[in-house]
């Protein structure tokens, strides 16, 4: 039965993906291709759509593949499949955590883990800046170019939007969702003019 097959396949994808997001793409692709559910071109479209729509890429592709293969119920089955492993594991971990909340080993482990998360969020800022504010990815060469010819490395409209977003967020305490919305409108206006 196709619904069950979709559920199981996407359960597997959800279960064996570490690190989320783009780490899941190769796994999703190989499963989809071995089942002949979509063509490679359609799969590339999904990634593009997933990048442009909100939400986790795994959920986006599960919904899309499910719908293309077996309609609405197919998309419901595939989405449930990809969500369930995370859901079950997160509940189990939360339950265990409640028990060991004040265990010295947990406290000392998280003393070391928290700054790692700060570092990871910082790298993710740079990865996203590389796809917008900077036209080239971060390297020694790119930093040299930044000094020599800044306009070739920096995307000016992106910088303007970033500065405005920062002002709105920090100075005027605008809600992040409104800032995202405003940046989208600014993008439509600025990039349509140039």
């Amino acid at each position, binding site marked *: 039965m196709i619904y069950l097959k979709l559920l199981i396949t996407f359960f597997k994808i*959800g*279960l064996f*993906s570490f*690190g*989320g*997001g783009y780490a899941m793409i190769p796994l999703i692709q190989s499963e989809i291709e071995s089942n002949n559910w979509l063509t490679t071109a359609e799969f590339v*479209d999904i990634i593009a*759509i*997933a990048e*442009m*729509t*909100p*939400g986790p890429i795994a*959920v*986006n592709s599960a919904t899309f593949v499910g719908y293309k293969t077996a309609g*609405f119920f197919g*998309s419901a089955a595939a989405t449930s499949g990809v*969500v369930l492993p*995370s859901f079950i594991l997160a509940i189990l*971990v*939360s*339950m265990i955590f409640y028990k060991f909340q004040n265990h010295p*080993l947990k*406290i*000392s*482990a998280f*003393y*070391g883990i*928290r700054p*790692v*998360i*700060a*570092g*990871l*969020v*910082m790298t*993710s*800022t*740079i990865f*996203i*800046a590389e796809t*917008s504010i900077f036209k080239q990815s*971060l390297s020694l060469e790119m930093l040299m170019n930044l000094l020599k010819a800044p306009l070739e490395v920096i995307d000016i*409209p*992106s*910088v303007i*939007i*970033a500065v405005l*977003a920062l002002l709105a967020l*920090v100075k005027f305490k605008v809600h*992040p*969702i409104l*800032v995202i919305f405003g*940046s*989208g409108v600014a*993008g*439509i206006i*600025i*990039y*349509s003019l140039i």
Partner: protein
Amino acid sequence: MDRKKTFRTLIDLFVTFFKIGGFTFGGGLAMIPLIEKEVVTRKKWIDEDEIVDIFAVAQSIPGVIAINSATQVGYKVSGKKGAVAATLGVVLPSFLIILIIAMFFTRVQDNIIVKNMFKGIRPCVAVLIGSAAVRISKTSVKDKITLLIALVAFALVLFFEIHSIFAIIGGAVAGILIKALFPDKSLNAEKRNGGNGK
């Protein structure tokens, strides 16, 4: 807690995570600034330290980071029912949007207006995540040791492209070792941190 209040909390969790799910562009970590604003600053369901722990766990277990985080927050706020409400909330926006796209416009990615909108959103997301990084650093980098750990993790992931899960495991090992070798130092940090957390 009485029934009515529990029910209201569940609805609140669902709506909050629906909002978060509907505006998370750029995957997993892009959700951090929104979760912080809604769950820590506005609703005060959990504090800054706890949310950083939740993100750490979300990245260390398999699965979708957004769902891992939503389930944990929901569970913390009101148990298993809370976990279900938050998870449904965070998944539904993407599910509905993709369903509509799959039904009607398969080539939405070629639309120039959509393209320009996302060119505008991307630098904004960079700013949002950057400011979240600053806030997380304020609560998690408490002394020279944690500053060093943060910088090493940053460099390893950025320049040597090591997987984030190994950075997290490394951080845990470093934390346990440091606390075992210099019990006083990290104890003070915990105390100071307890003082900051109101």
